[in-house]
């Protein structure tokens, strides 16, 4: 991976059906080549999670994903002892009259690996891509031990000692900015803000993600989505919504995007009743008309 360059990575991502621009490709490349974690931010549905998945495919390696949520603890992210098994062992030993020592209970046999430990102990042949998804949903305490892990690419299990990665994982973090992350964590990361792609690229992404759809569909949906994004909406449609709109139109077999088919599929692209009202006020016919 040391001779990987931006065009090569970009082509590999493309082959994994992810269309990255030069900025994102460069960010991912630097994460790989510099061995530094990368923090990806951007609107919901702009392709943050998909970027990390595509990176794993492009590098031909394993993706290990940790989905964060409020209250996520070390036991769920790092490792946990198999308490039921330990309890059983204690009972068994008691019944036999054997004395049981801590050392007998806290061994590999009783260790349950969670994503962070799995990424550190990943056997290869290539380093794993570790995706820490929506890190803003976890809380401060989680960030603290995440920081330790990122600093040393190591995990300390008090009973077993320190596990240091032989293959430092490529770490991608995503955030939706529901809260500010710790400065210390941000300082450790490379950073990239994924912008919403332009209309041509949205059309290209639709073609990739809904390959069975008719040719007219991708550019028409992309244009209409771009118009909707200029409306005053609670949740302007992103890439994810463009894809689900195109999928709906395709699956329902509409021969064109017009007022009628837009009306029937609006729920796929607008998620709030207020937004549907706003679009209807502007007029669906106006929003989906052809430029020609």
């Amino acid at each position, binding site marked *: 991976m040391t001779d990987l360059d931006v065009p090569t990575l970009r082509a590999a991502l493309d082959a994994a059906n992810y269309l990255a621009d030069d900025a994102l490709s460069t960010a991912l490349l630097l994460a790989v080549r510099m061995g530094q974690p990368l923090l990806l931010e951007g609107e919901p549905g702009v392709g943050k999670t998909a970027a990390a998945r595509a990176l794993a495919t492009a590098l031909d390696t394993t993706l290990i994903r940790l989905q964060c949520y409020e209250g996520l603890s070390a036991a769920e992210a790092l490792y946990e002892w198999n308490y039921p098994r330990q309890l059983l062992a204690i009972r068994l030993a008691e019944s036999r009259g054997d004395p049981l020592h801590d050392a007998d209970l806290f061994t590999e046999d009783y260790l349950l690996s969670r994503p962070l430990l799995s990424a550190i102990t990943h056997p290869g042949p290539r380093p794993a891509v570790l995706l820490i998804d929506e890190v803003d949903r976890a*809380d401060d305490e989680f960030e603290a031990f995440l920081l330790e892990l990122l600093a040393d690419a190591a995990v300390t299990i008090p009973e077993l000692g320190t596990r240091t990665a032989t293959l430092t994982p490529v770490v991608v973090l995503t955030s939706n*900015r529901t809260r500010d992350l710790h400065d210390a964590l941000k300082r450790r990361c490379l950073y*990239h*803000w994924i*912008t919403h792609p332009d209309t041509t690229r949205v059309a290209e992404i639709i073609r990739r993600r809904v390959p069975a759809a008719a040719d007219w569909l991708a550019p028409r949906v992309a244009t209409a989505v771009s118009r909707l994004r200029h409306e*005053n909406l609670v949740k302007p449609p992103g890439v994810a919504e463009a894809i689900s709109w195109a999928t709906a139109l395709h699956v329902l077999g509409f021969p064109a995007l017009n007022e009628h088919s837009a009306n029937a599929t609006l729920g796929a692209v607008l998620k709030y009743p207020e937004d549907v009202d706003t679009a209807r006020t502007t007029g669906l016919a106006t929003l989906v008309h052809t430029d020609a």
Partner: protein
Amino acid sequence: MSRFTDLLARAGLPLGPDRAARFATAITVLTPTTLADLRRCALITLTSDPTHVSIVDSVFTTVFDDLADPAEERGQRGTPNNPATPRATSPTSALPDATPGAAGTTMEFAASASATERLSNRDFADLTPAELATLVVAMHRFALRTPPRRTRRHHTARRGTRTDLRRTLSQARRTAGEPVHLMRSTRRDRPRKLVVLCDISGSMAPYARAMLQLLYCATGGARAEVFTFATRLTRLTRALTHPTPSAALARAGRTAPDWSGGTRIAAALAALDHNVTRGAVVLIISDGWETGDPTELATQMAQLSRLAHRVVWANPRTARPSYRPLAGGMAAAWPYCDAIVSAHNLDALDDLIDALAGRRSLRGADRQTSQFGSRQVAGDHPLHPPVAGRAGGSSPAP
């Protein structure tokens, strides 16, 4: 490179030696041959927030003024088949020290620092858009923080509410495997949500712009829900997540079309979802010139003060020592506010920050306008009728 990083540090970017070193590493890894590549290295290694992106972008443009291709705008890059191709420059000529304009740049930044000083006590309404924009860097240094609330996060505690399996088990080993002592855990704290309601009607427009710019710079969009109102309530939160302040404000302008016209504060409050305000710190930015019925505003404020954790009102008119809450709306709302601040210029923003954080030491405490309303008396008793003009605990100076 050192001049470039110096300028960034001066522009308020948190830039330790680790980041500068990382920037240098990125350059050796990528060996950028175009300015676009170099700019990307800078953005990826030196930022960690959409607001930093605008700082790096503008400093980069300033430093590489003569060399940069103006068509190359971040985020507006070309398509895969048609990449924006900025003029190729050799790596040596891309170094700022070799740039003729570099000395001039330093001057410019020094000038901007003193400009900030000059502008810090000028009323926001008297600033030109360009002057307001120069305050971006200064505003970036403020941090809007709210008091904590409890969360679902658990940590070990003797009288906790949840059983901690790990600890229970390690205890159980001392009692022959019987989990007789249940170990418990309890909840953690995190900052409360900030909900901002910004009046964008006619005379408030310049303050609204300044306040939105502050929110953009000082919260980075984090945990703040921002609404504007004049005749109708508009949610702006998303508009403020744009990577540059000017784009954020432009988007806000497009999102909230009624930048002028009458103000209906009560109607705006009524339109707010209770789930948004419950337990939140609510900031209302308005001069209180309610065109609707003040009694209705009092009713809405009473309800808001019961739902919210704190209600802070920023009214630029209160900056004048002679100010009296005679505007029907302001008088009606006054008893239900935990703090009233002016937030009318850069210097006055400290009071606002303190008020939101729930600190009582307001700098302008000698002014009647900066004292606390009598929420304990009026706000907590729904049946206690708020009396217009009676701002408990802060009677007008003689």
